């Protein structure tokens, strides 16, 4: 390679990297599947998959509310907190901005089933008040973000504590992997619907994963770090908080 071709190659690679990381538009939001992107049959399918989890969460919530009617307000406050978190811009490791999902921190404080309901309301608000995501794809988005995310995060946290990883590392893994699991689910949802003639369904899923992971891994790391710092600060303020994550 001559010097000038080397320059050209590095220049192109640099530009590509820039566009994949820093050069994203300001609104680099959590990647919800947009309105109308999935065919009607698949929309119905994901709604059907998501609804049992939602009902399970609702039943859990009803128990909490019946035991103590005032907890309605605390639940709503937490839901609002998660929504606000998802509207904030978080500087990511690569210099781009992303929006924390708040799922990790919510799961640690309330357990996954309650968060599946609150997360769904958040998604509904995002679709109705911020035009993020969509109503026809709400089932698919809620399944990836409010079901897979929290439950994976919770499982990872429990597992990490079992093998004696430190509290901070466990929290980091919980938030970061919940984030990644959400995007893996989104990749699967898209890959199954738009199979590639040359690659087959599985190949297509990998293709989507590749593209999403380029943009999402730094964001997941950012989310993990933020959750650790935030969790520690909040725990300092409320040393006696009842944690569903079962921290002690």
């Amino acid at each position, binding site marked *: 390679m001559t010097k000038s071709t080397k320059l050209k190659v590095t220049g192109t690679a640099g530009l590509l990297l820039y566009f994949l990381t820093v050069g994203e*538009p300001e*609104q680099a939001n959590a*990647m919800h*599947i*947009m*309105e*109308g*992107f999935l065919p*009607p049959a698949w929309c119905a399918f994901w709604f059907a998959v998501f609804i049992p989890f939602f009902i399970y969460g*609702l039943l859990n*919530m009803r128990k909490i509310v019946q035991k103590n009617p*005032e907890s*309605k*307000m*605390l639940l709503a*406050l937490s*839901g*609002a*907190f998660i*929504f*606000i*978190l998802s*509207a*904030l811009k*978080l*500087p990511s*490791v690569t210099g781009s901005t992303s929006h*924390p999902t708040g799922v990790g921190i919510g799961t640690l404080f309330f357990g996954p089933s309650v968060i599946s*309901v*609150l997360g769904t*309301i958040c998604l*509904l*608000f995002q*679709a*109705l*008040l*911020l*035009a*993020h995501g*969509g*109503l*026809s794809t709400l089932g698919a988005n809620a399944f990836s973000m409010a079901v897979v995310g929290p439950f994976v995060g919770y499982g990872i946290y429990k597992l990490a504590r079992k093998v004696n990883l430190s509290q901070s590392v466990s929290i980091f893994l919980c938030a970061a992997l919940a984030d990644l699991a959400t995007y893996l689910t989104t990749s699967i949802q*898209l890959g199954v619907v*738009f199979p*590639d*003639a*040359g690659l087959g369904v599985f190949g297509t899923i990998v*293709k989507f994963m590749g*593209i*999403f992971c380029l*943009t999402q891994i730094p964001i997941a790391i950012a989310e993990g770090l*933020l959750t650790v*710092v*935030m969790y*520690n*600060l*909040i725990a*300092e*303020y*409320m040393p006696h908080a009842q944690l569903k994550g079962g921290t002690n």
Partner: protein
Amino acid sequence: MLIIDQIAYQNRLLKVSPCKKSFFYLILLLICLLSFPAIQLGMMLFVGSLTMYVARLSFKRYFKWFLVPLPFLLISLVTIMLTGSKNPVSFSHAILVGHYYIGVTPASLAMAYQLCIRSLSCLVCTYFFIFTVPFQQIIQVMSKLHLPDFFIEITMLMYRFIFIFLEVTHMIYKSQQLRFGYHNLKTSYLSMAQLGRLLVIQMLEQFQQMSVALEIKFYDGEFPIGR
């Protein structure tokens, strides 16, 4: 922040019953989901101009809303268009990477085109819905659908609290910025975590004050949804 709400409260169909509007929206959405590009483009024009008139939006302002899902749309469409294979026969344009050809086929281009049109036409319908039905009316629709009462109450309360929080968040965020709180990566994380902590403290204080206020008003565990 919640501009959609402002637009919705000023639209010309405010007095029309929310159930009728929702029903109309569902029919539009189904047409867009199930039909083919020609009809979808027609729907875009029709529903789009209807929305602009009803919601009193200029074309420029209306068009800006279509930039919101643009990142997702572009990334996904490019992903769907590009495909890889070992033999270069089926491609219309391709480049050789190692032993693999990566490029676009006529089939993948057609798929991306149809998808783009369908997605955008559905988005036009959803924008019609959110620009004509303010949140208050969405709650009414939810209670007509017989969702559990406590779920609707929590949704309603959440909506109220979001505004309280937004104000506080905005103030804290601004003052942190003024003190170089988001100056580099490390301070950004600390600032944002501090912001989270302050919000939690605010949250608990709000909760205590509201509990007291409700206690005084003989709260019995029910918020009237206004059926």
